[in-house]
């Protein structure tokens, strides 16, 4: 069975500081990993994905994520946080053998001015 863990329910950072939202996964075979963002009363929006290749992937709104196979992690990062980045972030996994997405329980990011 595949699983995704987001160990932090809440992350608080000051505007202008770097941010990291953590994600770890468990799957048989190679993973396909995604980050989505959800604003209040809205559906999820795709941010970025890792399929293969470079371990550092860049996505929308200045976000990037680093894939680490040995640590089975896919942490979301941004060098300088904005207040508008405040939202709920979901990490998702699709195993190559499973064919369906498994989501973490989400991390609420709050960026304070």
């Amino acid at each position, binding site marked *: 069975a595949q699983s995704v863990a987001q160990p932090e329910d809440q992350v608080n950072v000051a505007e202008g500081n770097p941010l990291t939202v953590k994600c770890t996964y468990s799957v048989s075979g190679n993973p396909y990993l995604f980050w989505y963002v959800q604003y209040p009363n809205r559906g999820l929006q795709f941010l970025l994905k890792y399929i293969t290749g470079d371990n550092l992937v860049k996505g929308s709104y200045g976000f990037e994520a680093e894939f680490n196979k040995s640590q089975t992690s896919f942490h979301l990062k941004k060098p300088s946080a904005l207040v508008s980045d405040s939202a709920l972030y979901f990490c998702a996994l*699709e195993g190559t053998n499973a064919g369906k997405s498994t989501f973490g329980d989400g991390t609420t990011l709050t960026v304070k001015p």
Partner: protein
Amino acid sequence: EAGVAQSPRYKIIEKRQSVAFWCNPISGHATLYWYQQILGQGPKLLIQFQNNGVVDDSQLPKDRFSAERLKGVDSTLKIQPAKLEDSAVYLCASSLLFSDRVNSPLHFGNGTRLTVT
């Protein structure tokens, strides 16, 4: 492009009543998904369609939930009878091709918030 449309946005019903949700995916998207998102949890896949055929419904509570995608476009998800634990946001998503799933990220609608009292 127009996004995934869902209706209604909110629905309040009493337990044992029935309810239906509607989804219109992005034009040309062959794959359609229904997810259940309970407060404080990530979305859980209920059912996945490829065109008008079911690809995966392993997590759909078939004794009370049903879904169809006639003509491979719009989809409806029905709950009959509803239970208190069905209170959640029901998200519809679509993607271009299941066969190219990893290059076709999910596009989500805004969801329907269901409250069962």
